[in-house]
C-alpha cells in the first residue's frame, strides 16, 4: 500500500547517507533539565544586533522577565531563564570563539522556578503588524541552528507575498532527535504555531516535510491533520543534508532557489519544527523564550536524552549532569556534520543550540588520519548537494586561487554541509578549505 509511495518518495540529487546513531535518544521523551547554579546568558543568541541589557548587577529577576531588549527590527529580546539575581554583565567566550556580552544570573536554589511573567493575548484579533510585534516580543529566533529572528523572517515573507510555508521536519543531522520528539509529544503546539505563522506571513498553505526515518511522527501528524486542508504532510527520503532550506524547497515545490537568492524568490518561507512549536506554545500566554529542547547525546555521555534546557546553562554543567565517558572528548554544538566543536566548556546553551554531541576520542585516533593527494575519484562531486566540484575547488584553494573559485566554480553556492569532506577517501579537509576561501573573499570584498 505504502509501497508505491516509497519508490516515488522525493529527494534531491546527490547527498550522503551517514550512519544515524539516533537510537541513542529516539525513544527518550522530553524531560526537564536541572537548573545550573549559575547561568551565563549571552546577549547575542540570534543573527542581527545583540539585545541591550535592561537589568543591573545585584538586581533580582523572575523567571521569564525581560532582561535585555531588542535593538531594532532584526533583533529580539532576552528573558530570564531562572529566578535569581544578576551577578554581572560581562564578556564571555562564545561557541565560535569571539567574546560576546552576557548576563550572569545566580539561580535561587530554593525557588520553585515557575514562570512569573507573561502578557496573554487573543491572537485571532491581532492585525498582521501587531502579530509580528507579538512574535518579536517573545524573543523567538529560528531554532534550527541559524537563529534568524522569526518575526523578521515572517514579515519579509509577507512583504514578498509568499504562498507556501515550508515546515522543516527533516532533522537530517545524525544523532539529533529533538524535532522528532517534538512532533510526537508537542504536536498541538506545533499545529497552533503553524497557524500563527501562516497568519503572520500571509501564506495560504503549509507543507510539513518529514524524513521517512520518522514514520511514527508522520503518522501522528497525518492523523491530527486529516481534517485540516491548509496543512499537508509529505514524507521525503532520508538523506543528508535534506534539511537544508534550498533542498527542501526543491524537493517539496520542485523550485530551485536561484544562486544568491532567497526562498521568497520562489514563493516560500521555511520554518523549523522547534521554532513553530515554541511559537504555538509561547504566543498565547505571551511568554518569553527561555529554554529549548536539546538532544544531548553521543557515545561520550552516560544518559543521552532529549532535555528541556534553560538558556545560559554551561556545557560543563550539562556534562556533569548526564555523565561523560572517558577523559578526552570532542564536544560538539549542533550535529556532527555541521556543528562546532567547542574550545571551552564555559560555552552556554543558547537559542541556536539544537544538540550537544559528545564523541569520545581514543588517543590512537586523536591524530588526524593520513591525508593523500586527491585521486580524482569523483566521490565529492557525487556527494555535493549543490552540484559543485569540490575536488576542483580544493585544488584551486591549495593554489590560493580564491577568486577563480568564486567566479568560475560557484564557491558561494557552497553552504558548508561537509558532505564532500565526509566521503573523501584522501581525507582532504575540503569544506575547511572552502570556508577559508569564502572568508578571505569576503574580507577582500569588504
Amino acid at each position, binding site marked *: 500500500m505504502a509501497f508505491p509511495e516509497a519508490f516515488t518518495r522525493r529527494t534531491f540529487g546527490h547527498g550522503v547517507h551517514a550512519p544515524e546513531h539516533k537510537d541513542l535518544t529516539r525513544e527518550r521523551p522530553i524531560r526537564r533539565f536541572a537548573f545550573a547554579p549559575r547561568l551565563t546568558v549571552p546577549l547575542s543568541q540570534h543573527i542581527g544586533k545583540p539585545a541591550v541589557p535592561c537589568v543591573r548587577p545585584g538586581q533580582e529577576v523572575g523567571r521569564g522577565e525581560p532582561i535585555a531588549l531588542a535593538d531594532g527590527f532584526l533583533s529580539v529580546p532576552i528573558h530570564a531563564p531562572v529566578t535569581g539575581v544578576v551577578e554581572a554583565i560581562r564578556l564571555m567566550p562564545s561557541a565560535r570563539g569571539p567574546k560576546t556580552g552576557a548576563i550572569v544570573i545566580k539561580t535561587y536554589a530554593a525557588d520553585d522556578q515557575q514562570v512569573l511573567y507573561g502578557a496573554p493575548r487573543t491572537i485571532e484579533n491581532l492585525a498582521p503588524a501587531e502579530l509580528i510585534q507579538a512574535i518579536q516580543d517573545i524573543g523567538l529566533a529560528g531554532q534550527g541552528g541559524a537563529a534568524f529572528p522569526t518575526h523578521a523572517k515572517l514579515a519579509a515573507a509577507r512583504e514578498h507575498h509568499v504562498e507556501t510555508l515550508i515546515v522543516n521536519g527533516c532533522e537530517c543531522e545524525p544523532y539529533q532527535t529533538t524535532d522528532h520528539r517534538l512532533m510526537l509529544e508537542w504536536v498541538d503546539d506545533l499545529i497552533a504555531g503553524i497557524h500563527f505563522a501562516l497568519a503572520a506571513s500571509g501564506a495560504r498553505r503549509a507543507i510539513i516535510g518529514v524524513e521517512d526515518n520518522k514514520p511514527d511522527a508522520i503518522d501522528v501528524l497525518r492523523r491530527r491533520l486529516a481534517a485540516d486542508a491548509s496543512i499537508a504532510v509529505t514524507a521525503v527520503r532520508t538523506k543528508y543534508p535534506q534539511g537544508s532550506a534550498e533542498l527542501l524547497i526543491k524537493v517539496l515545490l520542485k523550485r530551485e532557489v536561484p544562486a544568491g537568492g532567497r526562498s521568497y524568490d520562489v514563493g516560500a518561507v521555511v520554518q523549523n519544527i522547534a521554532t513553530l512549536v515554541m511559537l504555538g506554545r509561547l504566543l498565547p500566554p505571551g511568554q518569553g523564550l527561555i529554554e529549548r529542547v536539546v538532544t544531548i547525546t553521543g557515545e561520550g555521555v552516560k544518559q543521552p536524552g532529549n532535555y528541556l534546557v534553560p538558556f545560559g546553562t554551561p556545557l560543563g554543567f550539562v556534562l556533569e549532569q548526564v555523565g561523560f565517558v572517558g577523559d578526552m572528548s570532542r564536544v560538539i554544538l549542533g550535529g556532527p556534520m555541521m556543528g562546532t566543536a567547542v574550545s571551552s566548556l564555559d560555552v552556554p546553551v543558547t537559542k541556536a543550540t539544537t544538540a550537544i554531541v559528545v564523541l569520545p576520542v581514543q588517543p590512537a585516533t586523536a591524530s588526524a588520519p593520513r591525508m593523500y593527494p586527491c*585521486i580524482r575519484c569523483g566521490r565529492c562531486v557525487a556527494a555535493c548537494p549543490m552540484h559543485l566540484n569540490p575536488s576542483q575547488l580544493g585544488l584551486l584553494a591549495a593554489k590560493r586561487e580564491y577568486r577563480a573559485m568564486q567566479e568560475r566554480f560557484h564557491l558561494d553556492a557552497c553552504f558548508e554541509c*561537509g558532505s564532500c569532506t565526509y566521503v573523501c577517501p584522501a581525507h582532504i579537509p575540503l569544506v575547511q578549505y572552502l570556508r577559508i576561501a569564502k572568508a578571505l573573499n569576503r574580507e577582500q570584498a569588504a
Partner: protein
Amino acid sequence: MAGPPRIEIRSSPHLHEAVSVDMIMRHVVYALLPICVFAVYLFGLSAAALIVTVLGACLLTEHLFNRFAQKPNSLGDFSAVITGLLLALTLPPGFPLWMGATAGVIAIALGKVVFGGLGQNVFNPALVGRAFAQAAFPVAITSWSPALAPGRFDTLLPSTLTPPFMLPAAASAAPGTVVDAVSSATPLTLQKFDHVTTNTVDLFTGMTGGSTGETAALLILLCGAYLALRRMLDWRIPAGMLGSAAALAGVFHLADPAKYPDPLFTLFSGGLMLGAVFMATDVVASPLTPRGVWIYGILIGVLTVLIRLFGGLPEGVMYAILIGNAASPLIAVLTQPRAFGEVKRRKPT
C-alpha cells in the same frame, strides 16, 4: 574521573565515511588476485615468475624514487602494487623476465613519478609500461603461449629466462623450426589475419591464448562486479565502454558478417574486458564528473573497435584507453555539473 573531560577541537564534519585511499586500492588488489591465480593456472610457472618480477620491479622503483626524492614511503597506498599486477597481466605469459622488469621500471618512473606521484599522473601507469614494452620489444610481446600446456608447472617456458638484451628463444630460433611448437596465436590474431573465430565459451572462460591475465572474461567481470558493489569502481566506465564497443561491432557485423566479428567476440576477446574493468577505471586518469565518465567510456569503446577493425594491430584497447586518458582532463572541464540554483539569466539589456 574528577573534573570535566579534556576536549579536542577540530572543525566539522566530525564524522567520516569509513573509506580511505589505501582501502580502495587494497580492494582493487583483492579483486586482481583471483585473476592472477587463474593466470598461473592457465600458463603455469612462467606466468607466476612474470607477475612476481614485474610487481617487484614496480615496488622497488617506487621505493627508490621515494628515497631519492626524500618523500614519505608510499608503498602503503597500494597503487604501485596495482600498477605491477595490471602490467604483468597485460604481457604475454612467456614474456622474458628482464623485459618485464624493464617495463615495470618504466611504468612507475615515466607513468607516475615524473608527473608527481599518486593522483598526478595523466596516463594509467600500467599502460605506459605496456606501451613502452610494445615499442621496445615488438617481437617478444606478440609471442604467445597456449593455455593449459602440459608440463607448465614443471618447467618455465624457454623465452622466460632469456638473458637481458637477448631476443627470446622462440622468436630468435630459425623460422619454421620450434616457433610453432611454443607459440600460439590469440583469438584476435586468428580472427584478424586468418578469419578463424574462437568458440565463445572458450573466450568467456578464458581457455585460450592471450596475455597473462586478459583471457578470463567471466572472472574479470565477477571481480569488477565485486568492486562496483563496494562502490570502489565506477560501473559507468565499463558499462559505457563495453556497451558502445558491442553496439559499434554489431553494426559492422550486420553489414558484413564474413569480414567483421560479432559483438560477443568483440567483447570477450583480447584485452577489452580487462581494460574496461581495471584500466579505464583508474580513478586518477579518468574524468570525475558523472556525465564526463559516460563520454569517456563510450569514447574508449568506439576507439577500441575502430583500431581493431581498421588499424594495423589486432588489439586496440591499450591505445584507446591512452587516448581516453589524454582526453579526460578536457572532458572533465567540458562536463562541469550545473550548480544548484545556477539559473540561466537573461542578458542585461
